[in-house]
């Protein structure tokens, strides 16, 4: 069934067929990922992935701040003599690597709900929630947000955690899911 569905979903490449592809995806979720909601005693007081919510925080300015400790390390990027590391949903650590024997963290670019980045020339591309920000870092002490392209990067991991196992069914009216934390919860009815 799983193999069948994976193959069956491949032909749906045209936008016209996207709906069918989505239907196929749902079929896959039902058959392969097996997200189920359970009734019974085994869902109370268990270890489960618990969604961490955050109110949608879209921004109109970006700010550079002093360096800070890495708490939740995210994706990495290299550009010229600099190394960048995302702080999950908080922004980007900037590391000066011009002395390769002694690279040092120098600053933090605060971008709420950021997970991805890329650079070309003096321009940093970074997501803020599902918007793409274009930030001019030509004068890096004064980064300026030039523009944003909205809804270019739909959020992932909203319906279920990336890991398999029991999880608290998300309630998206509480905000967006920015993380899934494994912990003991009073009730976890969903299973992936």
């Amino acid at each position, binding site marked *: 069934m799983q193999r069948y569905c*994976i193959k069956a*979903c491949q032909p*749906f*490449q045209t*936008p016209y067929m*996207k709906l069918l*592809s989505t239907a196929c*995806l749902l079929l*896959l979720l039902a058959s*392969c990922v097996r997200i189920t909601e359970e009734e019974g005693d085994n869902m109370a007081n268990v270890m489960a992935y618990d969604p961490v919510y955050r109110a949608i925080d879209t921004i109109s300015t970006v700010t550079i701040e*002093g*360096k800070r400790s*890495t708490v939740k*390390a995210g*994706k*990495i*990027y*290299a*550009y*010229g*003599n600099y*190394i960048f*590391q995302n702080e999950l949903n908080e922004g980007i*650590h900037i*590391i*000066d*690597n*011009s002395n*390769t024997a*002694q*690279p*040092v*963290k*120098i*600053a933090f670019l605060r971008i709420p709900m950021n997970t991805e*980045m*890329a*650079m*070309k*020339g*003096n*321009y940093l*591309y970074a997501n803020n929630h599902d918007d*793409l920000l*274009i930030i*001019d*870092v*030509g*004068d*890096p*002490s004064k980064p300026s947000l*030039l*523009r944003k*392209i909205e809804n*270019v*990067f*739909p959020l*992932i991991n909203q319906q279920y955690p990336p890991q*398999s196992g029991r999880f608290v069914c998300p309630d998206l009216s509480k905000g967006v899911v920015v993380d899934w934390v494994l912990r003991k919860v009073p009730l976890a009815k969903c299973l*992936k």
Partner: protein
Amino acid sequence: MKNILHLLLTFSVVLNLSCSKDSASRSDVAGSGTGGSLARFAIVGNYMYIVDYSDLKVLNIMDPSNPVLKNTTPVGFEIETIYPFKDKLFIGSTSVVHIFSVTDPEHPQKLSTAISPEVLRRCDPVVAKDSVAYATLRTNGTCGGTQSILAAYDIKDITNPVQKSTFPVTEPYGLGYADSALYVCDKSGLLVFDIRNGYYPNLVKTLSDGPYIDVIPYNDILICWVKNGLALYNIRDRFKPEIITKIQ
């Protein structure tokens, strides 16, 4: 603080780190940077490609200050990573690797799909070198296979990738290569493979100091995303990474 500002001011200086050596570094003449194998953003020349859960988006960045969304192509589902290689994009999903041509940069064309028969569900960061593509396939609980693997595919005929070999690993994540060394991140540590015999990676060293998540081989530096930040290694000797520092 003044010192920091001074350092920041030099930020705009684009050093042309010409990659005379064969490496996975994605710096190009147009002055873009280099991402890891788990990235969802990729820059190829004047175009930026973005993958979300199901779609590939193309943005024209000929004027880098003003990207313009040009195209959205449905790819599949559970898309996780994008890796540009020459005029191709390798798009990793939890089930398969999709290979697209960007010969026409604004209209990516699907060429093929690489599938490993052993594993039905996994996470698929992928990199390519010459006629070989490497992917880490992480088994995934309920629907996964029994063994996570590093897989090597023959991509000489890009329309028909053929799996040539697999290597068992614990719980793999990102990967990258510099010359003949392939660095594979694993829950058990960093695995260094000799890939002089491309289709048959040979494990030559393991750094067992905790989980590694992704790497960027960047000239003579190996930039590693580890649990609490970064670990930077000197890889002047490709097969013997030497720790420079950890940054938390």
